[in-house]
């Protein structure tokens, strides 16, 4: 390694990092998987899903928002962190209406893939069965809030890549929900377009392109073929200029 001052250690493996990288960035570059749902390389980290929490010098920190610093000793794969990640994932399932069998995102859904990765066999907690508003007003984009996990990837993508600011999270705690920045509050009156990153980045089945469901046959869907822990290394938001940044 060229620069011995730029290394951290994750579960006993010493890896290199570039100045300014977070622990998550460094881990992804070194092909070490730290579970995450709300992080997407190329967007500002938000640290809200809590799945990437790792142990650093006895403290719990989110890998996506913590700067890598020389000599950090990080624990990622521990039974305790696994248990916490399982609990978080199970809670995300029961808080929304995640009925994988009939969901069109099935096979391409990161929440589901996280369940596979963690070995989740049941949802453990009582189902919330929320009734949340569906917004089908846009001709090409569908918003089913009952599946939203509030990762705010769409919020950041719209702002940072599409340059539009279509989405926001309103409310707090159990009342937090995704809102649309238009006069009517409807997606149909917003300026979202079908090829916006915000319309395509949803890790679950909350924001969907209409009439595209079930097009990919079973067996060829993303997580039929690879685990989320491999797919994560290939992800990066497209360059800004492709999306007519105003």
């Amino acid at each position: 390694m060229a620069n011995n001052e730029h290394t951290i250690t994750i579960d006993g493996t010493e890896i290199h990092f570039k100045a300014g990288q977070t622990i998550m960035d460094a881990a992804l570059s070194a092909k070490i998987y730290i579970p995450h749902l709300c992080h997407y390389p190329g967007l500002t980290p938000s640290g809200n899903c809590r799945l990437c929490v790792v142990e650093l010098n006895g403290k719990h920190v989110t890998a996506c928002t913590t700067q890598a610093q020389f000599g950090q000793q990080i624990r990622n794969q521990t039974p305790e962190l696994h248990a916490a990640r399982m609990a978080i994932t199970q809670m995300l399932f029961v808080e929304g209406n995640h009925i994988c069998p009939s969901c069109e995102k099935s096979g391409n859904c990161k929440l589901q893939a996280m369940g596979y990765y963690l070995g989740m066999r049941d949802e453990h907690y009582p189902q919330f069965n929320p009734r949340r508003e569906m917004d089908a007003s846009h001709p090409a984009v569908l918003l089913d809030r009952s599946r939203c996990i509030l990762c705010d990837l769409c919020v950041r993508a719209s702002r940072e890549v599409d340059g539009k600011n279509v989405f926001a999270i309103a409310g707090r705690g159990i009342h937090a929900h995704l809102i649309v920045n238009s006069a009517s509050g409807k997606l149909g009156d917003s300026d979202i377009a079908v090829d916006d990153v915000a319309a395509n980045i949803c890790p679950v089945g909350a924001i969907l392109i209409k009439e595209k469901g079930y097009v990919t046959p079973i067996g060829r869907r993303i997580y039929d073929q690879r685990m989320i822990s491999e797919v994560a290394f290939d992800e990066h938001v497209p360059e800004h200029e492709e999306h007519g940044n105003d």
Partner: protein
Amino acid sequence: MTDHKIKIATTSLAGCFGCHMSFLDMDEKLAILSEYIEFNRSPFTDIKHCEPSDIGLIEGGVCTAENVHVLREFRTHCRILVAVGACAITGGVPAMRNYFDLRDCLEEAYLHGAGITNPQIPNDTELPLLLDKVYPVGDVVKIDYFLPGCPPPADAFLQLLLPLLDGKAPQMTGEKLHYD
């Protein structure tokens, strides 16, 4: 010889029978397996009540008072109780009625449907009481193992049963995990 056979009881509560179909998808392996297992109460047999069994396989969630009764009977009599499939584990697609008022569902089906004559909500002592919601079986009784999927593939049943035939606890690995 019969003494060594593993007794399996199965039932479908608020399920679609698809998990039972997946069990039959073991195909010719069923003929081999039938030398080592026997069915107790099951839709495949004419035994109507669960008796002491090694394994109980529950398909479907809980949507009537009678489902609760049957599920408790299985818990009492089965040494190992397995929730099979998405509906048993989470309520599944039938649990989508949970987002509505039960009365609205009944009215839609029996009062407001197209071409309905003699509209009324069926209400007879012969019909078991419907529960307000569809519940996962784990909300009602303790479950020992979960086989996710809609339905779980036939191999998942083998993965569960084969160690038991050797007198070992099932080792559920993540390889076949699919929620579909």
